[in-house]
């Protein structure tokens, strides 16, 4: 499955190996893993909790992957996003893309992350020494996603 939303951790090696298994057309495998940091906006973070919108999440991620496939020649795409409680150093998200050449794999991988950050219904709640707080959306994420629209025009 191209898109998975799950509480469980994932095995990076198994996922990346499976994505390209036996496909000798693949010359490039670009991947990204997002990880829980122990500090955000100056405050220590001991735990985060990821809420999502079941049903819409999968649809939104699949739409992003489909859009990437129309923009670049890709052989395989995998998106795994975890939900529930997570701790510093835990894996949050994996985006992996295979292609014949590296330029397309890099672009598609970054595109999917940028769109995921602004279009997939996930919300982070952080536990800090001052109590729990919902993470605010970053303006940098909006401008990262907007880059991909400018290139079209």
């Amino acid at each position, binding site marked *: 499955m191209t898109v998975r939303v799950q509480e469980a951790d994932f095995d990076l090696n198994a996922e990346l190996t499976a994505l390209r298994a036996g496909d000798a057309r693949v010359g490039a495998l670009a991947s990204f893993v*997002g990880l829980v940091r122990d500090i955000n906006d100056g405050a220590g973070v001991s735990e985060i909790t*990821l*809420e*999502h*919108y079941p*049903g*819409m999440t999968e*649809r*939104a991620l699949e739409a992003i992957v489909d859009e990437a496939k129309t923009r670049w020649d890709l052989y395989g795409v995998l998106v795994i*996003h975890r939900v529930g409680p997570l701790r510093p150093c835990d894996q*949050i*998200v994996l985006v992996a893309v295979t292609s014949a050449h590296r330029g397309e794999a890099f672009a598609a991988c970054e595109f999917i*992350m940028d769109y*995921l*950050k*602004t*279009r*997939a*219904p*996930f*919300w*982070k*709640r952080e536990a800090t020494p001052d109590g729990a707080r*919902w*993470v*605010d*959306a*970053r303006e940098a994420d909006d401008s990262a996603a907007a880059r991909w629209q400018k290139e079209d025009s």
Partner: protein
Amino acid sequence: MSVKILYFAGLREALGIGSETLELPAGVATVGTLRDWLVGLGRERLASAKNLRCAVNQEMGGPETAVRDGDEVAFFPPVTGG
């Protein structure tokens, strides 16, 4: 007509409710009018929320998006996953 309304993240916490199914009066046929009507019902946080986002039937929408009988309408803050 009847619609299912969902709230997520900080908005869900502020309202103290995750979902509700409501009978809409005549004239409430878009996300924008639905929001105003919900504020009138006492869900003031929907009025003050910064950058409130919405989805209709699990697709992102805006104030003009139509709301029909049986739809699922969600309100939530800007997303912060990844």
